[in-house]
């Protein structure tokens, strides 16, 4: 592990190190990997993760492996670019053609809440042959080291992880080193910034080159909705279980984690299902403790609900918590740590009153497709970026936050002929 840290993740202590890294990367600017080779390599890396039992047990690594499957990444590219061929040649009609070229050096600031996030961000950029420096957070170091080691050992049809590493570096420096953040920012042709408000605001205000493209995946809020048609579903319990899975993933620290579930009807119909689902999932995925700050919030919120005579359904320990009885139409401040607020709502369309641009994902359970489309259109107009089934809230997808990331990571070049 120590060896991996020394070789694969670079601990930065001064600005000249970053400049040197950028120079090293730029030496390989013209080095181009073919899309098919890249897709095959990531497919191999995906299988290597699944085969490695220890690695497969790491939080989020199986999902990352599935996401890297060749068929999925191909679809991702097609969705973003229309035609993968744009990466290799000028395409169009006889007079006017277009080509997608790398944007240059992409600098990634990666939040620590999802341990595998670095790979989602960097791989999309590698697919279009960009150069990359990803600054990761302290809590991601261990995960990144292990995954990167496996990456460096992979090889497919002559393309190795070590070859690909000519196109990227993963670095770490403390978050309070503004001088290093600034240097990184000034080197970037594109900045991909993932994180909470404070860190996003901090990085955004740092100066950049005038052509630098900013892609922000900033602070977001997500919630779930169960409409009246779904309350009669024979498999209601199964779908509620999926909402609970959405809440358990990354302990509700993700932008797509649900914190409140609005129910269009009697809460008593769903409470038992939620209780059962939480009990069951706690056996499958026991909680590994809880951060002090989150524990304090859980204790406080449970006590507040109890004082006000509302419903508190929970385990004696801080394993999971269901809170009901406050039906005010509002989003609730996240508590995290497997805490779900249940609110009764008269009509799901009323939710547009609480929508903002910061709402990312709405998990929607309804049997009425027409209603789903009308609801999605209305919520999207007021800010929501994704309206998906329960169980799919955290599935990293493209577009994300309304952004087709790969499309933003290329420059579109025009060529006209006589």
């Amino acid at each position, binding site marked *: 592990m120590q060896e991996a840290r020394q070789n694969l993740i670079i601990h930065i202590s001064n600005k000249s190190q970053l400049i040197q890294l950028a120079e090293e990367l730029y030496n390989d600017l013209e080095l181009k990997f073919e899309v098919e080779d890249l897709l095959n390599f990531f497919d191999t890396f995906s299988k290597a993760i699944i085969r490695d039992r220890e690695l497969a047990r790491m939080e989020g690594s199986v999902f990352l492996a599935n996401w890297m499957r060749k068929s999925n990444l191909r679809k991702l590219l097609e969705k973003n670019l229309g035609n993968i061929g744009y990466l290799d040649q000028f395409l169009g009609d006889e007079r006017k053609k277009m080509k997608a070229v790398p944007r240059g050096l992409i600098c990634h600031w990666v939040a620590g809440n999802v341990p595998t996030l670095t790979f989602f961000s960097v791989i999309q950029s590698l697919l279009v042959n960009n150069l990359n420096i990803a600054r990761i957070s302290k809590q991601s170091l261990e995960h990144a080291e292990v995954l990167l080691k496996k990456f460096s050992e992979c090889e497919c049809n002559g393309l190795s992880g070590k070859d690909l590493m000519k196109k990227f570096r993963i670095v770490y420096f403390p978050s309070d080193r503004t001088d290093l953040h600034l240097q990184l920012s000034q080197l970037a042709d594109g900045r991909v910034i993932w994180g909470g*408000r404070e860190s996003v605001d901090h990085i955004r205000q740092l100066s950049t080159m005038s052509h630098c493209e900013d892609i922000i995946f900033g602070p977001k809020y997500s919630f779930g909705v169960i409409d009246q048609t779904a309350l009669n579903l024979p498999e209601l319990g199964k779908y509620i279980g999926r909402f609970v899975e959405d809440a358990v993933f990354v302990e509700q620290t993700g932008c797509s984690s649900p914190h409140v579930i609005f129910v269009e009807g009697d809460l008593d119909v769903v409470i038992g299902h939620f209780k059962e689902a939480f009990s069951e999932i706690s056996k499958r995925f026991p909680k590994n403790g809880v951060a002090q700050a*989150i524990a304090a919030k859980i204790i406080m919120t449970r006590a507040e609900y109890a004082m006000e005579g509302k419903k508190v359904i929970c385990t004696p320990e801080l394993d999971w918590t269901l809170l009901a009885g406050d039906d005010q139409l509002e989003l609730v401040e996240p508590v995290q740590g497997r805490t779900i607020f249940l609110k009764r709502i008269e009509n799901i369309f009323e939710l547009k009153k609480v929508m903002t641009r910061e709402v990312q994902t709405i998990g929607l359970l309804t049997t009425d497709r027409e209603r789903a489309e009308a609801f999605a259109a209305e919520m999207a107009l007021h800010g929501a970026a994704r309206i998906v089934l329960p169980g799919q809230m955290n599935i990293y997808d493209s577009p994300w936050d309304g952004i087709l990331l790969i499309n933003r990571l290329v420059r579109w070049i025009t060529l006209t002929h006589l």
Partner: protein
Amino acid sequence: MKPVHDVETLIKEEQYTIPQAQKEKVLLNIMKEQIKAGIERNQYLKNFYTTFGVDVDSLQHLVDIPPIPVNLFKKYDLTTCDRDKVVRILNSSATTTGIPSSIPLDATTANRQKKGLIAILKSIIGKERRPYIVFDSPSVNDPKKSKLTARGAAIRGIENFSKKTFYIMQEDATGNLVPNLDQLREIEQAYGDQEILGFGFTFMIWTSLIKNLEKSNEHFSFPKLTVLHSGGWKKLESQKVSKTTFNSELERYLGMSQRKVIDFYGMVEQVGIIYPDCEEGYKHVPNFGDVIIRDIYSMREVEIGESGIIETLSVLPTSYPGQALLTEDIGTLVGIDDCPCGRKGKYFVFKSRVEKAEIRGCGDTFAQRLVKLGGL
């Protein structure tokens, strides 16, 4: 079952003398009655016990009492006596959230708290009255105010051991507290060779007293001074000031013994009980209260040597539900009944405040959303 001891006896008896198992039984019987009385008088409290499905009569152990987070005093009126019986409201210093706690005191509670504090201090510093130097400004203990801060309450409590009280801090032209050096020199000349008691808030002693004495290079000689201090360690730790440094600087500038610098743990929600360090450096619990260190995840009581969130228990209050309060502090349970200092009951060390780290990741949009809505 009739309690073996009543509250007054528990306060009056010599402190730190009841073995833990025996004390728990005594306290539980008293607390059950107190909690039932509180539930009768306060709807919030009634809701709290009902929601958590606790039948007070069936409680078998102190650890079974659901503790009330201290921050709830910032949000709810938890008075458990008739409103016209409230003689004073204690306010916390509102350091973390900006909202102070409000603790209503009736005459019984105030009286018991006073007696409780005296009983504890007596066992630590002896019963003699002596000159009392307050490292603060007199405005924090204005007798005309019906509301009292934690600082004021502590100063007032320790004043019971005072022969004559001197407030030696004053505001300078910029509004900062600075020591009145002339006054301190006069006290030195008049009482320097006598037993003297001093009290101040830890952070204030460091920033307003020691730092100013250092700046002016003034040294005093109080060889028989005992300084009690409390609160503000978090700020000092952020300035890399250790307990050893704090004590040695007091020794250097006030000419006192480091061994007579006594740090104590306490809170405005539990006035009447303080937890001073014993000679071994551990905090003890008087006969009329207890401490439970709960694992922050399981909420079960930790084993000896383990750390968790500190819950303080007291039989002193009749005007608010202070029987079992969950703090936002982390401590380590060091032992039970066997401290080398000879005191019985649990003993522990304070470790830190509960971390208030920002929510990780992307889920911190909430405050921004509220701002936006407010602007519509």
